[in-house]
């Protein structure tokens, strides 16, 4: 009997993993702190740039307010907050990582602070193709408690290789053109939307407080914060 139960268990795991190899958990399970704290306003500080693309953080900043507001949050005007932060001598978000989150409430009135790390912002070429990769890490902390409210990692590779029907030379040329045209920004936007779909929605969203059981969190993408 025990053997049969075991067998069924193993088989159902096999079957289930066949259907969905991704391990999705509920938003509440993954981010209980987010439901325990009242978070209305978010300050997005300048991104930590771990790539060789110097302008990545600046361009990335044009993409993040939109999805966070669609998720029901008030995002402090990022162009203005960034200016103020830069005037205080901060040129890279890395300088803020060890700041006490409470400071961001005192200075900006923010309930939470979002640290973004750009891990990949790359273009690769191969013989008859190419791709653009954007990889982002997100950590949101409460300014009241300092606790991590939400953390996620996501990345997207967009293939820019195309068959132009012009043979190998044609393909190489079209790849170069496609890659030049495929900007990082649209890719970054999609990464944001993918990641933010795991974030519990805020008080401006009609489903606020009702998405606890939504299985939208890929467990493998919940990044662990090194503190």
């Amino acid at each position: 009997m025990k053997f049969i139960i075991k067998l069924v268990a193993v088989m159902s795991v096999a079957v289930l993993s066949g259907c969905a190899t991704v391990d999705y958990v509920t938003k509440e399970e993954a981010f209980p702190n987010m439901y325990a704290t009242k978070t209305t306003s978010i300050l997005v500080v300048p991104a930590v740039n771990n790539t060789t693309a110097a302008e990545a953080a600046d361009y990335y900043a044009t993409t993040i307010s939109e999805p966070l507001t669609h998720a029901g949050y008030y995002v402090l005007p990022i162009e203005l907050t960034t200016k103020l932060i830069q005037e205080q001598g901060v040129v890279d978000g890395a300088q803020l990582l060890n700041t006490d989150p409470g400071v961001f409430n005192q200075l900006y009135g923010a309930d939470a602070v979002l640290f973004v790390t750009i891990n990949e912002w790359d273009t690769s070429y191969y013989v008859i193709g190419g791709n653009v990769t954007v990889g982002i890490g997100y950590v949101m902390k409460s300014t009241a408690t300092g606790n991590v409210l939400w953390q996620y990692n996501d990345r997207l590779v967009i293939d820019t290789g195309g068959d132009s029907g012009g043979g190998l030379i044609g393909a190489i040329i079209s790849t170069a053109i496609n890659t030049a045209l495929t900007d990082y920004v649209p890719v970054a936007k999609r990464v944001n939307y993918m990641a933010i779909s795991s974030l519990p929605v805020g008080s401006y969203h009609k489903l606020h407080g009702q998405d606890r059981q939504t299985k939208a969190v890929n467990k493998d993408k919940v990044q662990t914060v090194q503190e």
Partner: protein
Amino acid sequence: MKKLAFVGLLVLLMGGCAANKDMLYWGDYSSTLYDYKKEPSDETRAAHVESLEDIIAKSTQRGTRIPPGVYAELGYMHIETGSTELGAKYLQLEVDTYPESQKFISTIQQRITE
């Protein structure tokens, strides 16, 4: 037949509006801001101001909230070019729409009057 097609089209259009009722309108925000950052010039700046104004106009038309930060950013851009009064008006609209912005906006207001 024509009438039916018209009604059908109308329903489709209205359905489109209704579905977007909760959706904030961000217009070209991200692309005009990107252009302005990539190549700062009078033209790219004007285009971004225009896109902020368009967001306010269209959102008002649709009856959706003005997205967070849009009033503030437009206000600041006006202040940068010397239209202090108009800029201050927009900053205040940000606070009126989103009281949670009060603390930050008053910091900006103080800097302007200093």
